[in-house]
């Protein structure tokens, strides 16, 4: 099994190095450690990814899309959220336990980035961004699908927008730049880096929002709040009314 994987990896890597030159010129000069990282990533890729994404990242019809030009941001998003590897190719990729170590993810990301130029992993400066602007941008662009409290929501075709409560700052920024799955892409010309940082900061704020009332009730909005008000509040009042009306 391992031997087969290694052979496949070697073959894939050979094919890759042969094909790489014509796919794209490297954007930056590749240093030796970076080359080693790409090589290690190619090994991992050959073991787990080729069935759906093809031996050279060209994609396989009805299984997986091409990875040429998706960029480091996309690979890092899918791998660091556990969405890849995916066992059922056409299913919606869901957040789950991460399959690779941080080092392996870096290697795979380096390999995917080497396939073709695409968005790099965004750099997020902690605490940057304007919370109020983030709120406005989030309400305009994100809340329709992810809900105003980032609790997620249903879409068509049995697809859903995931809750954002576990998304890290980098993952939120990556999702905007990449547009994974059903999500539209919000490129730098749509939301510039400062605006993206504001959205990221607001989504991080939504992880622990300032619930002035005390109980968030799942942040699902007026329906659970009204339910609690009617059942608990009115129920208590009915008990009180009954007590007042009882003869001693």
């Amino acid at each position, binding site marked *: 099994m391992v031997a087969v994987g290694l052979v496949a990896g070697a073959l894939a890597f050979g094919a890759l190095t042969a094909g790489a030159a014509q796919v794209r010129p490297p954007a930056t000069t590749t240093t030796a450690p970076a080359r080693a990282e790409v090589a290690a990533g190619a090994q991992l890729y050959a073991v787990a990814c080729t069935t759906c994404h093809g031996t050279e990242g060209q994609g396989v019809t009805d299984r997986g899309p091409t990875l040429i030009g998706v960029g480091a941001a996309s690979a890092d998003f899918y791998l660091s959220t556990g969405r890849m590897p995916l066992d059922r190719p056409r299913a919606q990729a869901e957040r789950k336990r991460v399959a690779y170590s941080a080092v392996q993810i870096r290697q795979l990301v380096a390999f995917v980035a080497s396939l073709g130029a695409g968005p790099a992993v965004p750099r997020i400066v902690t605490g940057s961004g304007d919370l109020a602007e983030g709120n406005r941008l989030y309400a*305009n*662009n994100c809340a*329709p*699908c992810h809900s105003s409290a980032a609790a997620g*929501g249903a*879409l*068509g*075709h049995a*697809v859903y927008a995931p809750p954002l409560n576990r998304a890290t700052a980098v993952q939120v920024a990556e999702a905007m730049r990449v*547009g994974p*799955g*059903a*999500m*539209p*892409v*919000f*490129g730098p*010309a*749509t939301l510039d880096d400062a605006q993206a940082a504001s959205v990221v900061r607001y989504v991080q704020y939504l992880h622990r929002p300032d619930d*002035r*009332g*005390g109980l968030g009730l799942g942040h699902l909005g007026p329906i659970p709040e009204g339910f609690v008000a009617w059942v608990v509040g009115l129920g208590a009042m009915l008990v009180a009314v009954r*007590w*007042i009306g009882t*003869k*001693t």
Partner: protein
Amino acid sequence: MSSRQATEGRMAALLVTATLAALALAGVYIAGGQPQAEGALLGVSLGGIGVALVLWARGLASEGTVVGERGDLAGDAADEAAVEERIEEVLDEQPGRRSVLRLFWAAGGALGLAAVFPLRSLGPAPGRALLTTAWYRGARLVDVNGRPLTVGTLQVGGTLTAFPQGAQHAGDSQVVVVRVADGELRPRPGRESWSPQGYVAYSKICPHVGCPVSLYQADAHELLCPCHQSTFDVLDGARPTFGPATRSLPQLPLAVDAQGYLIAQADFDEPVGPGFWNRD
């Protein structure tokens, strides 16, 4: 007697608690405030006063059930006769029954006339306002902050809500702009030039009951209305593929001007939003 003393003791305890809670509430408020603590203290204070009042009232109320006998509703025949006689008398004192009855008719008629005027409050006739929007030939598309959209604003798979420049608050004019890969669209006859470089704009107002169609599923190229799950195929002129909507989203004819800005070629070629009485 002892039960009365016990009640008084309970009332005193409740009122002291209410007083302390109110003072604590003031203290918490002065110290900067904490919503949950303030709410709890206010509840204890008001609740203590309320319960004490109830206890007091229950102490005042007499024991047992008291039944108050009600008198006969119907008067006797003599009373009825007297009332009738009096009515006859009053009518006879007037200049004449006929004129009194006429005055009744006049008052009723005037009231009816007055009731007709509130019809005016139904508002001015909308005229052509429902048939047109703020879009015009050459209007630049701007985002909610007034920033104009250029051909580079969206990547393929991106989306943005846009308004006509200068009318960012015209609710009937908002469009959802989507960019798809060039050549992916299947434009309807006569609309071939409406979607430059994969940019396509549809009215954001659902033709079902007018919700904002703001959910874009980029992989399926479908717009989804969050209210009743009407789904529209972006590649096929926003034809409804699921849900209660029966009409396609009106499409705004787009063009790119010499400076690369996205502009409208004209207003929508059909009314936006849900149907109305004289739409067709």
